[in-house]
């Protein structure tokens, strides 16, 4: 690990200003950042430890709920309000990592976790995300866990997390404190980026931006589900995942909000699918049309083609379970 200065800032505002001025990383649970620092994939010159900042509360915000940036993943998943009103969020968190890791992992750290692309982790290999301009080893390499949607010829990595997929389905908002002292609110669906020509940028945070919390809208009505497909039934990242919030009106689907994990550089959300499903009587034919839209631009890079039928089947299964229709 490269040496760094350890700084325990006296206030968030100070942390934001210093980080913008001098560079470095914020550290929360450390479960992603320290892993990457040990491998020298990340080499920050300073660490700003956010852990003693007052951001570890879950509190009502209007009719919704505000999850502080430092709330541990386990505390969030176990919170009675989250379990009752936002079960898809509890379920998605519980599907990720382990109890030990989730005791340290935080809301903001989880949102900002980096890709698990093996070439990104291997400093002996070219990688545009780690070292812009060096090339993408995955494009013509082993790309079994890589993106089928929204990739570029610069990077085909996926965002690997589970929690954020549920936040996309719930249409949550990320609350950010800027170095200027101002606040901005970014819909979570606009928080992560597609790789384009700048794969080194995972999300829209600018230097000095500190996430202070995530705001959940008023509890949605209907069924909430999270389905994660992985290589073993615990302690493994998703190959495909689907978060769904579906409200029925008698026989028909009134409203469906869907997000997909492990398919792209960000959790995938396609409003056309929701428009298509609204008002329909659930059937496999309708579910297949939804999958057609989802997978319209899907690309097989050599080893990840299995994700295309897998995403279709997972989506259909989730829609069957959520609506009681189909098959």
């Amino acid at each position, binding site marked *: 690990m490269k040496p760094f200065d350890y700084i325990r800032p006296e206030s968030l505002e100070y942390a934001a200003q210093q980080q913008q001025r001098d560079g470095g990383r914020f*550290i929360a649970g450390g479960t992603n950042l320290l892993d990457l620092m040990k491998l020298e994939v990340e080499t920050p010159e300073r660490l700003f430890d956010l852990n003693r900042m007052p951001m570890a509360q879950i509190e009502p915000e209007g009719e919704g709920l505000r999850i502080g940036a430092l709330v541990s993943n386990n505390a969030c998943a176990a919170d009675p309000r989250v379990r009752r009103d936002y079960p898809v969020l509890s379920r998605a968190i519980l599907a990720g990592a382990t109890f030990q890791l989730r005791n340290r992992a935080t809301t903001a750290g989880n949102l900002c976790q980096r890709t698990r692309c093996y070439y990104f982790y291997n400093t002996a290999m070219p990688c545009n995300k780690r070292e812009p301009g060096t090339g993408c080893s995955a494009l013509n390499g082993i790309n079994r866990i890589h993106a089928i949607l929204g990739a570029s010829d610069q990077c085909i990595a996926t965002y690997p997390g589970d929690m954020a997929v549920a936040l996309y389905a719930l249409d949550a908002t990320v609350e950010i404190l800027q170095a200027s002292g101002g606040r901005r609110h970014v819909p979570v669906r606009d928080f992560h980026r597609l790789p384009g020509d700048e794969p080194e940028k995972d999300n829209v945070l600018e230097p000095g931006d500190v996430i202070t919390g995530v705001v959940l809208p008023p509890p949605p009505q209907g069924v909430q589900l999270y389905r994660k497909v992985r290589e073993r039934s615990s302690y493994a990242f998703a190959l495909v995942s689907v978060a769904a919030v579906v409200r029925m009106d008698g026989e028909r689907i009134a409203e469906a909000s869907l997000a997909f994990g492990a398919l792209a550089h960000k959790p995938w959300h396609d409003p056309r699918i929701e428009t298509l499903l609204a008002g329909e009587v659930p059937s496999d034919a309708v579910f297949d049309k939804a999958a057609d839209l989802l997978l319209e631009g899907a690309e097989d890079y050599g080893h990840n083609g299995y994700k295309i039928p897998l995403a279709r089947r997972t989506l259909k299964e989730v829609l069957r379970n959520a609506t009681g229709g189909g098959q």
Partner: protein
Amino acid sequence: MPQTNRSLTINGDTYEFSGDPRTSLLDFLRRDCGLTGTKKGCDHGQCGSCTVIVNGQRINSCLSLAVMHDGDAITTIEGLGTPDDLSPLQAAFVKHDAYQCGYCTPGQICSAQAMLEEAKAGWPSFVSDDLDGEVKLTREEISERMSGNICRCAAYSNIVEAILETMEAGE
């Protein structure tokens, strides 16, 4: 940056940390405090052999910096029991042969200790049918809740038995 002393309470005793901020909590325990019960398997959060209990919660000590634990209360395997005075879980692990080489065992036991508390607090897991229901630690629940502790010798079934017996004795 001036080095500031940090003080950690480990198994009830106070330890000062003033070393290189790169030191993981795991290396601090093993190298600086001589508490070598906690084991280093992967050093990357993937195996659980470094599990310790911090302020009542189990964590991977390899993915945490000692300097971040100023003021924290840490329990390691040495703090749970001694060879002459085993904790109930330690005794059950011995009785049920819940290990072969024993390398993962301190992490397994610290993890199980904290897991019993999490279940008492009603924390759900991935396999809980009902998020609101009471937590019943079935074999399936225990396996899921212990999945962060890998055992290369695959003593899993005996680990589950040892935990089940400890739970039943505690009821």
